């Protein structure tokens, strides 16, 4: 079975631009979460989506938004990119039923903002 997939693998943008990152969850999983991992740090929670609705949001500005589609795939959008947005963006999928459900992580999208 395929794991969590993310695209693109790498991305280079300039300040002020907009970016869209994509994630496909494991088949049968209805929850997708997004994490930002800055170099040298642990991942930080951005969003969780479950059944196409935002269930939770971390401490990130409104420039960050996301959505989940009927097939449970998800997009993360970041507007007005800043240098500090350079990071590895990780997507995780799970059944999403409770806190204990294992989250399976994708390989990430490496975003570089110049």
């Amino acid at each position: 079975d395929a794991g969590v997939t993310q695209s693109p693998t790498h991305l280079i943008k300039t300040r002020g631009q907009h970016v869209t990152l994509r994630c496909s969850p494991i088949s049968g999983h209805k929850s997708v979460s997004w994490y930002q991992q800055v170099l040298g740090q642990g991942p930080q929670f951005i969003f969780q989506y479950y059944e196409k609705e935002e269930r939770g949001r971390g401490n990130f500005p409104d420039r960050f938004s996301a959505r989940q589609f009927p097939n449970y795939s998800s997009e993360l959008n970041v507007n007005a990119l800043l240098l500090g947005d350079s990071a590895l963006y990780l997507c995780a999928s799970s059944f999403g039923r409770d806190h204990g459900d294992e989250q399976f992580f994708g390989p990430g999208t490496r975003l570089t903002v110049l």
Partner: protein
Amino acid sequence: AQSVTQPDIHITVSEGASLELRCNYSYGATPYLFWYVQSPGQGLQLLLKYFSGDTLVQGIKGFEAEFKRSQSSFNLRKPSVHWSDAAEYFCAVGDMNTGFQKLVFGTGTRLLVSP
């Protein structure tokens, strides 16, 4: 708010030697605790998790962890390290104060394995 501390940024262990990675958490009740491993270019892989019950938890790849409430710790151990264990290890706590799944991660410990 929950927090996780991994006091060791880097650890170097000889192949075949034992390993212990430290993790301390801050949480009011019994937490959900996790250890993940991240190899270069890869996502995070779950090694083991603790929710309740037996405080010694067995995971994949020969890893185990022990939950000690009195010390607010959840240290990861392996009796004999293999070169393929070289990676970054993250301890995480599940934030159950929210109505959603949220993991709070430590800053990670990079494991180097010497021949």
